[in-house]
């Protein structure tokens, strides 16, 4: 049985801004499903509809066969939601927040301790601290505990690691992996492409439409360009030079490297490119062909789709 079934969902704000256009998606039980797209693509609108907080204009959505509109009360019992903005009580302590959520769901911390234990171990040293005084990473770990305390069947996470440092981000995702093994379905959005790579499948959403649903490796396999990398001492002056490059290519900084994807026959394009760099006095490291990452794929798909 699929955990989430979305058929032809639309949402328009103020009668004119179309946030979601004919969204159709199916998420399997136990899957970690990633939702990735540019800012303003409609990700948060979709989360709000799935969590019964916003009514769609049309279409059907069911969670484990329950309709999110008609059966919203039962749907709320089986979902956990971590919204994009911190929404715990800053004036309550860590322990009090968790107690509060447990009571609201008629559950108790003891009942589901096994589920949250790996996270709780990390935050319990601060259990008497007010939630508003926690660091960004700790806040999100507490929010995850609160979203899990009633053992939901589906967990919705809207950018759970935004503003969280690299080490805490990795810990957060290790926790998600352990949740997955408990057969809880996870739907998560993220602006970090390394995190998207850790999902079972990724839906790419742009301008309110789904433009593809695939496992990360398939997305990588479908990269259309021929991707190369090279280093430069001054990436941004290199970018300015590349603006004048006559070849059909897409270039962008990638950490200390420049990535460039060509849509040409490389037998003629590469010598032409090297000549172009030489003519513009660009010193550079060795130009190497590389495998694209999900981030390269995101850039290609979004830019080619525009």
């Amino acid at each position, binding site marked *: 049985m699929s955990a989430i079934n979305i058929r032809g969902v639309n949402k328009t704000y103020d009668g004119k*801004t179309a946030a979601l256009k004919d969204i159709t998606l199916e998420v399997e039980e136990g899957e970690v499903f990633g939702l990735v797209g540019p800012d*303003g693509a409609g990700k948060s609108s979709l989360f709000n509809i799935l969590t019964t907080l916003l009514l769609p204009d049309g279409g059907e959505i069911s969670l484990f066969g329950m309709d999110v509109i008609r059966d919203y009360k039962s749907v709320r019992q089986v979902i956990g939601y971590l919204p994009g903005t911190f929404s715990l009580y800053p004036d309550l302590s860590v322990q009090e927040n968790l107690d509060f959520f447990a009571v609201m769901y008629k559950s108790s911390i003891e009942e589901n301790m096994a589920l949250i234990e790996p996270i709780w171990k990390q935050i319990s040293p601060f259990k008497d601290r007010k939630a508003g005084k926690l660091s960004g990473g700790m806040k999100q770990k507490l929010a995850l505990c609160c979203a899990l305390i009633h053992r939901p069947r589906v967990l919705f996470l809207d950018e759970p690691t935004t*503003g969280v440092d*690299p*080490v805490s981000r990795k810990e957060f995702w290790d926790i998600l992996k352990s949740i997955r093994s408990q057969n809880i379905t996870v739907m998560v959005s993220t602006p970090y492409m390394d995190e998207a790579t850790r999902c079972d499948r990724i839906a790419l959403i742009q301008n309110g439409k789904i433009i593809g649903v695939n496992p990360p490796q398939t997305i990588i396999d479908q990269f259309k360009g021929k991707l190369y990398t090279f280093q430069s001492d001054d990436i*941004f002056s290199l970018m300015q030079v590349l603006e004048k490059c006559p070849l059909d290519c897409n270039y962008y900084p990638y*950490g200390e490297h420049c990535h460039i994807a060509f849509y040409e026959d490389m037998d003629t394009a590469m010598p032409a490119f090297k000549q172009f760099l030489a003519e513009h006095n660009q010193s550079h490291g060795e130009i190497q062909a590389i495998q694209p990452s999900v981030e390269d794929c995101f850039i290609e798909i979004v830019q080619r789709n525009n």
Partner: protein
Amino acid sequence: MYSIEANQLTKQFGDFTAVDHICFEVREGEIFGFLGANGAGKTTAIKMMSGLLLPTSGTAMIAGYDIRTQSKLIKRNIGYMSQKFSLYGDLTVFENMQLFGTIYKIPRKELKERIMDSLRELDMEKQANTLVDSIPLGWKQKLAFATAILHRPKIVFLDEPTSGVDPIVRREFWKLIYLAASKGVTILVTTHYMDEAEYCNRISIMAEGQIKLIGTPGELKQQMGVDTINDVFVKFVKR
């Protein structure tokens, strides 16, 4: 001349030392990455350097002014933006820029010209009369940056400016940073995207209120014997 000179800068809250005797300098026109784990003390340090919070001890010179005694002059010479607060959602794009420009006492006619120039640079002329709440996050962040430099500050403090921003818009944002730096503006920026750390001229890594590492991205990778800044960070924080 240095734009930023922190000298034993310290902040204590009760018996908790948030910033612990930090010393560093940032050159004029430099892009300086101010990294650290959540809770390491970065935001507290930025608040002191922007004249919003007095240090417990030590000091910093910002654009040549002392944060303990000349905070008014500092505020006039710096720009600031963060992920959390930047613009008013229920004002239009133009109104926001007008508001900030007026606070900085830019003459009316001059201000209008600067706003139009800036919107042209951002390719947002058509959005001038749109409410800020209804534009996507990445655009908001680019707009917030343009607004923060409207009064032509010498130094801009950017606290997680690209947090939550998608890969394409992040790169556009960094193009704006580079453009500003090429005009001599000094940039101090915090980020949790380690690829962005590579775009900085120099970076520092803070932990427990102290600056533990400082140097160019290349130097830090060499020093720690790893290939990426992400590995430097992980190795360092987990040590």
